């Protein structure tokens, strides 16, 4: 294999895999598996063979005929890839997923046919696995030797100048010397040498195989005649495809393939009257292009070349059925259908566009069979296309189906397989028949994987010994660490697991000690982890017992080792440890009885014992049942009559282990998937079909009418003198003709005894914001116009409850008038107000359009439950937040909570969230010569108890928590952690108020102050889950990651102690990640940002910037920091890195752009000033720039904390030109890093393509130099 991962590079994957439940294949299974490769496929050949025979007679058998002829059910395979990239197959006759042993790397996709399976591996190469068959894949090569007669030499190779080549093809036009023939790929071998063909049209020729003619080209005869002036001989040689039943990389003849493939689909083998063995293979590249593989047939299973198809848009996924159906999904969510696919034109001729099943939600996935098309939309809903057949490949309409799926695939006979969203189980659609193509119900395939099964009859030393330590390795190999690293990732991880354990076991001296660095990523040069590891070694066996997480916290660091953390974290294994220990004892006992203490076995059982204990620790329940990423049924021949043993595995023969595994997986099955619940959903949708679908034209019994909700409120009058005025408030809602709701809100007031009103259209409201006000329960309503004025409608409800009711109602009305529902999309723009309220806005497609973007003030913001200080997102939908108390939170994907305990929100994924913040007041004193410092100030002085500004009196008794939602949870205490330092009593000194304070008294200091703090706590609910235990002050996610659910998303954070951290295991599927990796620094840091191509920038406490070198997916933490001086006389405080551009904000509110950043020189050359009055910046995956700005002047007022958008940002103009002002003031934070929605025009280059890594040469050159400003 071309990409054998080095150990260090592979670490990230391995740590995830270590978490994974690994068990053993006993010796017996092992044997079976060795033979099993053949056994498994053997029945398939007979099936294939039968087909080929029949096809040889140019007639195709129907499925039923085939059945009749094959007495037993033909055995075929369902292929699947789990989230770790391992390929498995499940036989229709089997009850266990068998891992594809020879896949030497992880796969992303597979697409199966009956005689082969194609895949895309993690090296982005296309691989082919041709199933062995009795009919070898041979290909004949031929060349002709031509001679002409002349009177001198007789027949000789001296030809006339006008003649053909002496060695040519049959036409004579092509020069073809015998040594010019090359094997198409390493998968082929020559069967023998060249030999002459001694037949002519079935009759033997004279010796030598010469055939004669009057001249080229003419009719050749076997007999030499008087007028035969020329003769020719046909030379033959056979080549044979020799890679059967294993994965062989398809050589890419074209160096021209610009970007790697992301999706692949084969089919087309049943296009009417097609030659045997022909197949269509379609592929999608990361840039959304579609390629067709030319020339695949029985004699050329690899095909010959890729041909690019023209497209109406960018494709994300494609599906090709066995017949002539080819559908693809466009990036924008529509689908395209290939038309004109036929025997003579398997590529088809043109595309037709079909709209997404759901107008608001784009399609993400499509799967086609012979007569069916199934699709998934972004919300994971499943859709069935009516009326699809070869005459009408587009079909006629969508029908919503039950279930939520991540991907879907159609097998033979239009059977449907899918991967469930909730549990990632493989589902089979039951009841699909030719008359009922949509089937009846989803049924989860519940068979275990071969790796999950322990064999109850495992009795030998070896099988006991190699328990849990890697799967197919011979036990003695366990100790053979070095040689085994060659065996590829699957092996390697198991091995490393064992090795790690060995090195930490007290009795490890018995084992060949693998250096612990083996499992330590490169960052250990920062010495932290190696410390950790060396600390561990003397410790005696804490590993076997559940290691509490606290044990891993080292001093102040609170960081865990990456691998160890992954392996040991979450010690929820109480019960699990129980049964595993029992099993282990049994295994040991068997070993003693067997009494074969060979050295290797001994070592191996030792290490495996340790590995086992480790493995037992990391039993996440969720990992117990396989998590699937992809399934392909193209090689799987089942129909509605098939008896499949896939669904309820009998546990009678299984060992207790299997039973435990199964009961575990049962217990982790979400209640959502309970049969009764699914039954209700399915029946309700059937009821709708039955009772309503045909009667939609009937009149509704109840007409929709206007609905009015009224109440009383106070309104902050628009004109001077501003004051709170009692008003009547009403919301009128009505349904539009399409059932869409709209409304108007009215504010009725009296002015000079005259009744007047103010109104606002609900569909023009851009945001409803609760306003921090300790006296009123107030909120503000903005429209684009009001945003321009910086003067919202400010209202106050009589009680807090009423305010929340109104906000929930109004927010629901606004969302439904704009057709927005459900959780925020992955692209959403998030912002946080200074009150800690969280808002999201769904970016319009034109938000980043150049030159006319959607104006910022028209963005609609809706609130999300919870309370945070900052929130960061990325385009795969991973969202993290940090609370005021520095707690890290991850978005659960839920919707609602907190402010909207109504129907508008679901209770799914909503949790309690607590936040704590400190309220500060200052005690101020002035020195006088008589009494020293006292609380008697000068008449001109500030209040002796005040806020930080000194302008407002704040005493311990009159100070209230920030709002009614907050309650005090501590008493007032002196705060010593004030910048500038304090003396022992917390005092800071200065010459006078207000001045700069220092923590010691000098002769010139006449005033002093000290800060008191008191903690208050807020309890709310929201779609957030806490990520203990490390407190954070900043977090950043790679903004543009591949949309796959399993790809790891780089996430960097700064702990509240200033440590730089890297989160491992963050994927779209597991947004919380698994463990922290500590990145060493010389000083505390305060801000970090990871941008495109894994550029990591950070800001240290001293205000200078740092660039992290060599960060890549293989080395997620990089290797070293490059210091980058801050702009002259400025201290930076925050940084944000977009796709390529780097922006930073300093403590004086200046925004800086880093000039000269190039892939080869990622540190850039200098800072360029862009703007002042900037509080925070967020650079996005399109390099778009958004800030929170201060002092934004509106037509009526000035606002601080305003969301602003940089206009005119283009690839050639990354700094942009001017600001567009959006919602505010009172905003503290914004992130646009989820929005990778490219504007419809003026496209930027694709983001999904990985940016070229910086050339290592350039980088190493900079290691010595100070990578600073040049």
């Amino acid at each position, binding site marked *: 294999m071309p990409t054998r991962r080095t150990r260090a590079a592979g670490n990230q994957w391995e740590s995830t895999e270590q978490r994974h439940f690994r068990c053993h294949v006993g010796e017996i299974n092992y044997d079976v598996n060795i033979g099993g490769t053949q056994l498994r496929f053997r029945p398939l050949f007979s099936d294939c063979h039968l087909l080929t025979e029949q096809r040889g007679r140019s007639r195709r058998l129907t499925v039923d005929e085939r059945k009749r002829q094959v007495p037993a059910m033909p055995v075929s395979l369902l292929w699947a890839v789990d989230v770790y990239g391992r390929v498995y197959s499940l036989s229709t006759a089997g009850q266990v997923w068998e891992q594809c042993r020879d896949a030497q790397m992880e796969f992303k996709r597979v697409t199966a046919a009956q005689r082969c399976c194609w895949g895309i591996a993690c090296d982005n190469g296309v691989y082919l696995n041709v199933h062995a068959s009795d009919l070898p894949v041979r290909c004949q090569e031929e060349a002709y030797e031509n001679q002409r007669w002349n009177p001198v030499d007789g027949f000789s190779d001296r030809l006339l100048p006008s003649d053909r080549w002496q060695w040519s093809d049959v036409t004579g036009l092509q020069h073809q010397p015998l040594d010019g023939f090359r094997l198409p790929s390493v998968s082929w071998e020559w069967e023998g040498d060249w030999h002459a063909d001694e037949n002519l049209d079935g009759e033997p020729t004279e010796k030598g195989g010469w055939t004669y003619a009057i001249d080229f080209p003419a009719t050749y005869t076997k007999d030499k005649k008087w007028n035969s002036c020329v003769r020719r001989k046909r030379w033959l040689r056979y080549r044979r495809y020799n890679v059967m039943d294993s994965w062989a990389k398809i050589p890419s003849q074209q160096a021209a393939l610009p970007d790697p493939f992301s999706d692949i689909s084969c089919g087309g083998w049943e296009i009417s009257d097609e030659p045997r063995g022909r197949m269509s293979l379609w592929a999608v590249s990361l840039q959304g292009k579609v390629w067709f593989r030319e020339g695949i047939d029985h004699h050329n299973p690899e095909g010959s070349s890729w041909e690019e198809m023209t497209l109406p848009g960018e494709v994300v996924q494609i599906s090709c059925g066995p017949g002539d159906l080819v559908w693809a999904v466009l990036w924008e969510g529509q689908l395209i259908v290939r038309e004109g696919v036929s025997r003579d034109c398997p590529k088809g001729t043109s595309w037709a566009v079909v709209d997404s099943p759901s107008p608001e939600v784009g399609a993400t996935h499509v799967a086609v069979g012979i007569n069916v098309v199934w699709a998934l939309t972004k919300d994971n809903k499943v859709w069935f296309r009516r009326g699809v057949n070869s005459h009408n490949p587009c079909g006629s309409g969508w029908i919503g189906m*039950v*279930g*939520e799926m991540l991907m879907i695939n159609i097998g033979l006979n239009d059977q449907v397989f899918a991967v469930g969203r*909730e549990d990632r189980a493989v589902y089979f659609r039951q009841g699909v028949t030719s008359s009922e193509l949509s089937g009846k119900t989803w049924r989860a395939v519940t068979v275990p994987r071969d790796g999950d099964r322990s064999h109850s009859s495992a009795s030998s030393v070896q099988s006991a010994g190699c328990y849990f330590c890697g799967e197919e390795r011979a036990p003695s190999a366990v100790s053979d660490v070095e040689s085994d690293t060659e065996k590829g990732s699957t092996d390697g991880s198991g091995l490393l697991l064992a090795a790690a354990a060995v090195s930490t076991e007290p009795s490890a001296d018995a084992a060949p000690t693998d250096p612990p660095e083996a499992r330590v990523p490169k960052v250990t040069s920062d010495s932290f982890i190696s410390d950790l590891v060396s600390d561990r070694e003397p410790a005696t066996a804490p590993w076997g017992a559940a290691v509490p997480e606290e044990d891993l916290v080292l001093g102040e660091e609170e960081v865990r080792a990456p691998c160890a953390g992954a392996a040991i974290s979450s010690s929820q294994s109480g019960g699990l440890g129980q049964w595993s220990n029992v099993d282990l004892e049994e295994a040991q006992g068997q070993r003693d009885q067997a009494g074969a203490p060979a050295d290797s076995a001994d070592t191996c059982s030792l290490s495996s014992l340790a590995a086992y204990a480790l493995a037992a620790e990391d039993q996440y329940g969720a990992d117990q049942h396989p998590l699937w990423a992809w399934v392909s049924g193209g090689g799987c021949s089942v129909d509605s009559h098939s008896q499949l043993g896939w669904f309820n595995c009998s546990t009678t023969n299984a060992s207790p282990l299997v039973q435990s595994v199964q009961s575990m997986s049962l217990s982790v099955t979400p209640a*959502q*998937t309970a*049969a*009764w*619940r*699914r*039954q*209700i*959903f399915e*029946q*309700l*949708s*059937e*009821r*709708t079909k*039955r*009772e*309503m679908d*045909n*009667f939609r034209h*009937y*009149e*509704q*019994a*109840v007409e*929709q*009418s206007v*609905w009015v909700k009224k109440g009383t409120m106070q309104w902050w009058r628009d004109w001077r003198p501003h004051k709170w005025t009692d008003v009547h408030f009403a919301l009128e809602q009505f349904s539009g003709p399409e059932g869409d709701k709209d409304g108007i809100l009215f504010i009725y007031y009296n002015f000079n005894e005259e009744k007047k009103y103010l109104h606002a259209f609900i569909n023009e409201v851009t945001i409803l914001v609760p306003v921090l006000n300790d006296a009123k329960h107030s909120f503000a309503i903005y429209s684009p116009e009001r945003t321009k004025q910086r003067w919202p409608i400010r209202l106050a409800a009589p009680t807090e409850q009423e305010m929340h009711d109104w906000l929930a*109602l109004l927010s*629901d009305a606004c969302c439904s008038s704009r057709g927005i529902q459900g959780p925020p999309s992955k692209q959403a723009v998030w912002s946080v107000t200074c009150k800690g309220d969280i808002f999201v806005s769904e970016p319009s497609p034109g938000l980043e359009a150049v030159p006319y973007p959607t104006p910022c003030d028209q963005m609609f913001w809706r609130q999300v439950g919870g309370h945070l200080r900052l929130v960061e997102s990325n385009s795969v939908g991973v969202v993290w937040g940090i609370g005021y108390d520095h707690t890290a939170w991850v978005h659960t994907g839920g919707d609602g909570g907190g402010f909207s305990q*109504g*129907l508008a929100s*679901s209770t*799914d994924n909503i949790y309690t969230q607590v936040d704590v913040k400190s309220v500060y007041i200052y005690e101020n004193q002035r020195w006088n010569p008589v009494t020293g410092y006292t609380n008697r100030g000068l008449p001109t002085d500030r209040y002796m108890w005040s806020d930080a500004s000194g302008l407002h009196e704040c005493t311990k008794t009159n100070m209230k928590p920030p709002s009614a939602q907050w309650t005090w949870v501590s008493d007032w205490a002196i705060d010593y952690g004030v910048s500038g330092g304090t003396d022992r009593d917390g005092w800071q000194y200065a010459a006078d108020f207000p001045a700069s304070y220092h923590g010691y008294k000098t002769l010139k200091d006449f005033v002093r102050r000290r800060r008191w703090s008191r903690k208050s706590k807020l309890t709310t609910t929201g779609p957030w889950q806490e990520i203990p235990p490390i407190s954070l002050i900043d977090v950043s996610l790679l903004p543009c990651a591949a949309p796959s659910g399993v790809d790891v998303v780089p996430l960097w954070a700064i702990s509240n102690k200033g440590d730089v951290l890297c989160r491992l295991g963050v994927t779209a599927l597991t947004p919380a990640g698994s463990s922290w990796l500590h990145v060493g620094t010389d000083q505390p840091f305060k801000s970090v940002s990871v941008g495109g191509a894994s550029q990591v920038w950070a800001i240290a406490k001293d205000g200078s910037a740092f660039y992290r070198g060599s960060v890549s997916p293989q080395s997620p933490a990089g290797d070293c920091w490059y210091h980058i001086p801050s702009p002259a006389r400025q201290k930076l405080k925050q940084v944000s890195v977009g796709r390529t551009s780097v922006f930073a904000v300093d403590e004086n509110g200046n925004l800086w752009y880093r000039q000269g950043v190039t892939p080869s020189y990622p540190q850039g050359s200098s800072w360029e000033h862009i703007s002042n009055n900037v509080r925070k910046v967020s650079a996005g995956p399109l390099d778009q720039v958004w800030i929170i700005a201060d002092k934004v002047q509106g037509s009526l007022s000035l606002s601080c904390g305003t969301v602003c958008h940089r206009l005119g940002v283009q690839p050639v103009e990354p700094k942009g030109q001017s600001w567009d002002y959006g919602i505010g003031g009172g905003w503290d934070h914004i992130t646009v890093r989820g929005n990778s929605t490219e504007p419809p025009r003026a496209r930027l280059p694709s983001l999904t393509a990985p940016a070229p890594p910086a050339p290592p040469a350039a980088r190493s050159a900079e290691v010595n130099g100070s990578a600073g400003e040049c």
Partner: protein
Amino acid sequence: MADDKDVLRDVWFGRIPSCFTLNQDEVTEREAEPYYLLLPRVSYLTLVTDKVKKHFHKAMRAEDVEEMWFEYEGTPLKWHNPIGVLFDLHASSSVLPWSITVHFKNFPDRDLLHCPSSSVIEAHFMSGIKEADALKHKSHVVNDMQKKDHKQLWMGLQNDKFDQFWAINRKLMEYSSEDGGFRYIPFRIYQTTSDRPFIQKLFRPTSPEGSAHTLGDLLKEMCPTALPPDGEPKRYQVVIHGIEPLLETPLQWLSEHLSHPDNFLHICVIPVPSD
């Protein structure tokens, strides 16, 4: 899987296509065309048939018109039962649209309650809600509501406003987590084969041991005939909102999600169609 709140919407927006025809015996001035309507399953016949009334009034002389009532295949339809219950109980095996005969004469006083105005329906509906809350929360929730909340429940039903109805109704569906469910499940079991209008008894959502009671547990105690005898094909269908939930469906969940707006779980036990 879909969200549970989708079930609430499906239940609320269930519609039965119906065809109203005037009884043959009614005296008309001109021929009265049938009238087609989508009836909300969760509403009441007399609440949603103003249009039907107007339609047939046009064909009749005012003096021939008395109180309107409905009949299906000889059975007078009790307006005080939800429409969906009437359909499931009497007509679930019939061909759609549901053919309902409209009468303006000979009101069957013995079978039907008079319904002179929608305020009667409102009173009936609200008494259902109050009775259900008495069972669920000892009436605490409904008594804590304001008059306007009660009105909003009714207006929600009357105007087919799901959001407005559920904005209040969700409070009626709450329970503290320590209770694990309602005090008693408000349910009514209807049978065509029985003379009793319905079965309604006290039944808790959980067993004394703390396990959740299921629909099967309820039927076993209240109406054992509805359950299929061992080894024999089932004779009765247990229908709620036109669907047959599995007998292992937890009763508390059913009560929260498949109750009618009056907060009762209306369960129809009907013979399996013989065909």
